[in-house]
């Protein structure tokens, strides 16, 4: 109410603007003192900026900006951008993840060059994500997607003297470039048949489409899906993910696997629901729901099965991240035209992404902590770690069990609500596949727990320091993961409300 009446409309983009401005501030700091390694200042500014953005997003969300109660979505720049509940919800996810990553980076990046660049790149990527969640046209979607991707490429290759990091950056970039050309080509095909890039116009044009063009439209739609599959690390565009997550600095992996994935889903949800409405698409024979169903099953299966036999914890997490993409895809796969359950399914997916943002970020940050200690990356290296660092290991246990979907952690609710809503929508087979994979995932997640708590350490390592930033970030993530169980109500209710608004 408040915003709707008293603030100019453009302020609805506040979170994104704050992020962008923070990035610029960082550039300024960097240009004033190019060799600055004052982590505290850089990280502090970044954290303040992202928290401010998060605060604004949460405030807007609570105040109902862009939601049905206050007059519906706010469209800006001739409908190119839209601010509604969903975009704010996702912005909250991105900024929370980014804030945790920044806090953790304070230690991780200590004594490294180019810190300011790192922080500003992450901030720019976050800005891109915020815009991505708000984009209401294929053009803004593409641009903000690239704005997200381009800094990410650089971030993955941030450790430029580390072969793994560089290799990861290369692969990420190459697959990314290929994917974005596919994406753009898909957009061009859709434009070819509809003559518009605005979601609503595309939708109405598709509704009147000559049946003979449906092949072109269909290829375009699926190619666009491919572009999002890249961003969300879904099969078959997932190939970059294991290497990128493994090779990248762990905070970046956390950022990419949590926020970037969420961003991909944010835009995918909006594009497919708004630009290619199910009823229209099915009439044209473009059954993207089925396509996402197949992708969901294949993605979760591939991700989990590959994760089950990894030796490297970080790579295991990478594959698990693919598996989770598969779960979230259920949100797009368990839809049906005009069904009342659509909002529930999509909302459950969104809620899962939020919880995932905490637990997965936490897990990668724990890996960052271990890397910081120089312990090693394989499961064996983690043996007996709990004796040395019980608090951190307890937090990691929380993340692992939460990822596996065990209570009393947030991942339990989000995963089971996701399955439940899929069943509720009649797609019980998706839930069944999810359940199978979930059981398998328990196996490999508990391997980490087993290594930390059950295995004997060989006593060869000493933990030299207690990095405050990393610890703080991990604890925040752990507490978030825990609190999201009893406090899941607002999350799921908000998510389902804003998701339902998308179908409205």
């Amino acid at each position, binding site marked *: 109410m408040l915003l709707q009446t008293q603030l100019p409309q453009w302020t609805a983009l506040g979170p994104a603007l704050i992020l962008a401005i923070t990035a610029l501030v960082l550039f300024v700091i960097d240009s004033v003192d190019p060799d600055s390694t004052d982590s505290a200042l850089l990280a502090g500014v970044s954290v303040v900026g992202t928290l401010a953005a998060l605060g604004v997003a949460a405030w807007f969300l609570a105040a109902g900006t862009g939601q049905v109660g206050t007059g519906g979505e706010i469209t800006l720049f001739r409908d190119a951008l839209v601010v509604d509940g969903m975009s704010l919800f996702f912005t909250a996810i991105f900024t929370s993840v980014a804030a945790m990553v920044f806090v953790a980076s304070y230690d991780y990046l200590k004594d490294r060059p180019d810190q300011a660049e790192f922080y500003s790149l992450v901030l720019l990527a976050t800005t891109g994500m915020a815009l991505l969640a708000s984009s209401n046209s*294929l*053009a803004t979607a*593409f*641009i903000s997607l*690239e704005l997200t991707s*381009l800094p990410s*490429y*650089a971030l993955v*290759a941030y450790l*430029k*003297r580390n*072969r*793994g990091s*560089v*290799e*990861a*950056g*290369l*692969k990420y*970039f*190459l697959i990314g*470039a*290929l994917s*974005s*050309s*596919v994406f*753009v*080509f898909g*957009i*061009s*095909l859709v*434009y*070819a048949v509809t*003559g*518009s*890039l605005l979601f609503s116009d595309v939708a109405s044009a598709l509704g009147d489409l000559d049946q003979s063009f449906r092949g*072109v439209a269909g290829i375009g739609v699926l190619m666009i899906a491919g572009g999002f599959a890249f961003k969300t690390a879904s099969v078959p565009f997932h190939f970059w993910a*294991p*290497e990128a997550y*493994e*090779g990248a600095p762990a905070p970046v992996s956390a950022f990419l696997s949590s926020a970037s994935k969420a961003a991909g889903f944010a835009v995918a949800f909006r594009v497919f629901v708004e630009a290619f409405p199910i009823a229209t698409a099915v009439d044209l024979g473009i059954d993207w729901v089925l396509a996402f169903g197949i992708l969901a099953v294949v993605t979760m299966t591939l991700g989990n099965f590959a994760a089950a036999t990894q030796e490297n914890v970080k*790579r295991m997490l990478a594959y698990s991240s693919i598996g989770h993409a598969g779960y979230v895809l259920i949100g797009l796969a368990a839809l049906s035209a005009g069904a009342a359950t659509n909002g529930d399914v999509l909302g459950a997916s969104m809620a899962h992404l939020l919880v995932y943002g905490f637990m997965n970020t936490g897990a990668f940050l724990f890996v960052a902590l271990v890397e910081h200690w120089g312990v090693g990356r394989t499961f064996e290296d983690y043996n007996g770690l709990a004796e040395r660092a019980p608090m951190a290991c307890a937090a990691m246990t929380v993340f692992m069990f939460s990822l596996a979907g065990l209570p009393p952690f947030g991942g339990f609710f989000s995963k089971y609500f996701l399955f439940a809503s899929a069943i509720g929508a009649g797609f019980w087979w998706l839930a069944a596949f999810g359940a199978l994979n979930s059981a398998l995932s328990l196996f490999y997640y508990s391997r980490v727990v087993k290594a930390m708590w059950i295995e004997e350490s060989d006593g060869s390592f000493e933990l030299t320091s207690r990095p405050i930033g990393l610890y703080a970030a991990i604890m925040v993530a752990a507490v978030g993961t825990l609190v999201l169980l009893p406090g899941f109500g607002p999350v799921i209710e908000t998510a389902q409300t804003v998701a339902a608004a998308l179908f409205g």
Partner: protein
Amino acid sequence: MVPAQWYLMLSAAIFCIGLFGILTRRNALLFLMSVELMLNAANVNFIAFSLQWGNVTGQTFALFTMALAAAEVAIGIGIILVLYRNFRDTDVTKATTMRW
């Protein structure tokens, strides 16, 4: 005026050629060039159908594509250079320290 479908064919051909390049060549720079071809294929579509539909949306989008392609190339070359520095090679199949 040439029918827009022909341009569709053309762009498809260019796209496929670019894809073919990506699949067959191992040099990272050729990879980049192939991607440029594919992006151009999309641009051909945009511009052709921009005319067809009588709006400038397509043209505008093509402009964005160019700008982003340029940025992408810039980033890409940066990465290729550090790749070269680390692996003494621009062969993308050589960087396989991480797999499985």
